[in-house]
Every structure is written in C-alpha cells, then in structure tokens.
C-alpha cells in the first residue's frame, strides 16, 4: 500500500472567493502582512498495485480535479 497525496488548488487567475474571505478575516485579526490567500484541498489516497502516482494522476484527470478551474499536484511522500 502506498500513500499518495494529491493537492488540488484553484488555478492562478481564477477568482478564489474563499481565499479572499479568509484573507479579509486575517486582516481584521491583525495579520495585515498577508497579501494573498488561496484555499484548496488535500486528498490522501492509499493505493495498492503498481505505479500509484500514475494511477493518482489518472484519477485527478478523470474526477478529483476540474482542470478548467483547478490545478493538481501528485506526490508520493518518501
């Protein structure tokens, strides 16, 4: 079994209202140095069989990310 970590983030240039809302809250709390916030998701997959990273990439293309608005990154932590 291999742990594969998939990170899905809103594409740069696509408005991220969630990130903006968080940034606004942080500014109200005094964290004024934050110039940008983007909120995405982390998906952890336990994958059996060969080429877990390749399988995860296919899953991202087919379901886990919508590439019109999201980028994904696949990582197998060592």
């Amino acid at each position, binding site marked *: 079994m291999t742990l594969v970590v998939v990170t899905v983030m809103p594409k740069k240039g696509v*408005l991220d*209202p969630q990130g903006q809302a968080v940034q606004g809250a942080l500014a109200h709390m005094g964290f004024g140095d934050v110039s940008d916030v983007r909120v995405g998701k982390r998906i952890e997959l336990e994958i059996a069989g060969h080429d877990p990273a390749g399988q995860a990439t296919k899953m991202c293309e087919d379901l886990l990310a919508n590439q019109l*608005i999201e980028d994904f990154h696949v990582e197998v932590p060592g």
Partner: protein
Amino acid sequence: MSATRVAVLRFPGTLDYESAARAVEGVGGEPVYAHHEDTALPEGTGAVVIPGGFSYGDHLRPGALASRTPIMSAVRAHAADGGKVLGICNGFQILCESGLLPGVLRPNASLSFICRQADLQVADSGTPWTGGRDEGEVLSIPFKHHDGAWFGDPGEARVVLRYAGENPNGSIDKVAGISNLGGNVMGLMPHPEEAQEPLLGSVDGRVLFAALLS
C-alpha cells in the same frame, strides 16, 4: 415509443424531483423517475430532466460525483442521439461536470446562498427552450443557489438566458442558462419548475418544460 415520457433523474441528495415531475405533467408529459444506479433510461423516454438539489452532498465539487454514475452514461447516449436534456441548478452543475455542457459552476462571488425571484433576459431565441420568445424578452423565474457562477467560454455554448439587471453571482457574461451548440441540452441555475402556477407569481417556467415535448 411515447415522446411525451420524460425521465426525471434522482440521485442521493436530489431535492426538486417532485416539483419537476409536476411541471412535466403540467405541460402534458408523463414523468418517470430514473435512479443513479440505473444503466438505461426508462423505456420510451423522449426527454430527460435533471432536477436540483445537492446530489452526493455536493462533495468534491457540485455535480462531480453524480456525473460519473451509470445513469449519466445513458443520458450521454440519449443526448448524442439528439434527445433533449434539461438540467436545473444542481442538474446544470451535473451537465457541466459530465461534459454535456461546457464550463463549470463556481461558488457565488459573494460566497452567500442567494434565494429570490429573478428576471432573465432571452439572449438567444433560436433554441427550443424559450418557446419562441424574442431576444430581450424577460422571464421571471426564481433561483436558489450557492454555486451558481458559470465559468467558461461563451463561444463554446449558446447563451440562452442572462440575468437582467445586476449579476447576482458573478457568472461570466451574466450567464443564467446555456445550451450546447446543437441546442438539445440545456442547463440553467434558476428553477423553472417553481414558476408554473399563477398563485406562486409566475408561469414563465412552463416554456422550458414545454420544450422537452416539442
């Protein structure tokens, strides 16, 4: 085969199927429910409605999980044969996630759930979905959504309905509803099934259901 038989899809979390079925009956159609695990549409299906709600709890992305179910393979085949498909709210999201319509529905720019009556301007009178209304005519239909901002390339679709007045959700080009280039697949965020009775303030939603049978 009865062209008046309309399949109304139900996924776990679909909410508006009874209103949609009632609207189908209102224009003389025969609604039949079809479920997410069905591998075929009910026999004699002439058109398909995908009602609103929160299929699969909106997990991952609205419509993403519903779009990968067996029944949607049958809907794809139906649409490829030129059959009519109407997706409302979550149904619109499912059609985009299925690739039957271009683009995707993103969270409202305000991040708020918005629920109110809306004026929708007919932007393309050349599809069956607006019942011969001229461009610029207005339909009054309510909407209720959190993820209603259509994002995509309007050149890949036909923009059938636009929000008149201010843009409530930040959609590209004030899009409220689009069809595919062929005109047989239509998706919109507002709820025409809730604009069927004079008592409820508008009957403007009837044209979209009548189009299913045309």
